[in-house]
């Protein structure tokens, strides 16, 4: 019997890709929380060690990662609500695709001002502004 995984990627529709995105954003948020718990715990080592570590976060790369984090948390939360509705609302499975389109629209609408605000602050910080 053949065991090697040759063949094409399964061409699932939006339901499958929403699940893939849910998994990826879930793992990303998990790793953020891991780092967050570790760096916050540094304050127990010494406030200086904590300040030094937090200081290394003050750069544009981490700024972009923060925007990514907000995007990941937002998608995971919105899609989580969609999954709860699929689970507990009897018409959830029927409207799952509509609900997915709705959360994507909400995600985009919320991400535009969020990204603009966060980028502006990041640039202001770099240029020594307020």
């Amino acid at each position, binding site marked *: 019997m053949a065991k090697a995984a040759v063949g094409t990627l399964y061409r*699932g529709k939006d339901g*499958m890709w929403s699940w893939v995105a849910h998994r990826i954003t879930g793992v990303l948020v998990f790793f953020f929380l891991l780092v967050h718990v570790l760096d916050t715990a540094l304050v127990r080592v010494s406030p200086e060690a904590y300040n030094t570590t937090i200081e290394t976060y003050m750069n544009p790369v981490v700024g972009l990662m923060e925007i990514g984090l907000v995007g990941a948390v937002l998608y995971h939360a919105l899609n989580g609500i969609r999954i709860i509705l699929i689970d507990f609302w009897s018409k959830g*499975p029927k409207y799952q695709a509509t609900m997915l389109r709705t959360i994507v629209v909400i995600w985009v609408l919320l991400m535009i001002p969020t990204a603009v605000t966060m980028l502006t602050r990041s640039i202001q910080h770099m240029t020594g502004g307020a």
Partner: protein
Amino acid sequence: MSTATEQATTPAPAPQQQTVTFKILRFNPDEDTAPHWQEFQVDVYPTDRVLDALTMIKGEQDGSLTFRRSCGHGICGSDAMRINGRNRLACKTLIKDLNAKKPITVEAIKGLPQEKDLVVDMEPFFQAYREVMPFLITSGHDPSKERIQSIAEREVFDDTTKCIMCAACTTSCPVFWSDGQYFGPQAIVGAHRFIFDSRDEGAATRLEILNSKEGVWRCRTTFNCTEACPRGIQITKAIQEVKRAVINS
């Protein structure tokens, strides 16, 4: 009027044959260590089915091409395969519904051991179905008349009676690919058909079986099964109904 008459009498253009490339994932357990792609050119009509093309390839080009088919009319559930990346019945998929300008890929369904070409070992799939006890369970004496059921009571599980056990749903499920122990959509559909049958008394037992680690809770609602079902069964909806029945039991 005259225009309408002219339109009505104009014969429909005859369908034109076209040469289509089929890219099939071949595997011969006696010779190959891994599956490999092989291309075939076939002259088909847009109204032909993928099954017709496979039959032509087997009959005219390569008799060793192996696939299952029985009725050829979407009822027996033998010829589920992955056509252009999606689980379909070869006998219900018309060439005109695929992009025939590009090669049409045909692979065995995923997640079950590939035995030869498009044939897989269906035993793990049937085993999961047997485990949910897909038969009427009653107690007491045999009834002396019919077991009466209202139209409304029958309607509750009407959708899940349509299953033909082709495995298109179970082998479209990402959870099943990575965890072959998961009962899979089809077994849950099979259980749903009896759990919600007003004449049946085995619902509690079936719900207990499906409340196990490899039961309904493994479903991640990707809707691949619902999309793949050639019978149009709302499978994810049925699984969710079973989930809620487990909670309420």
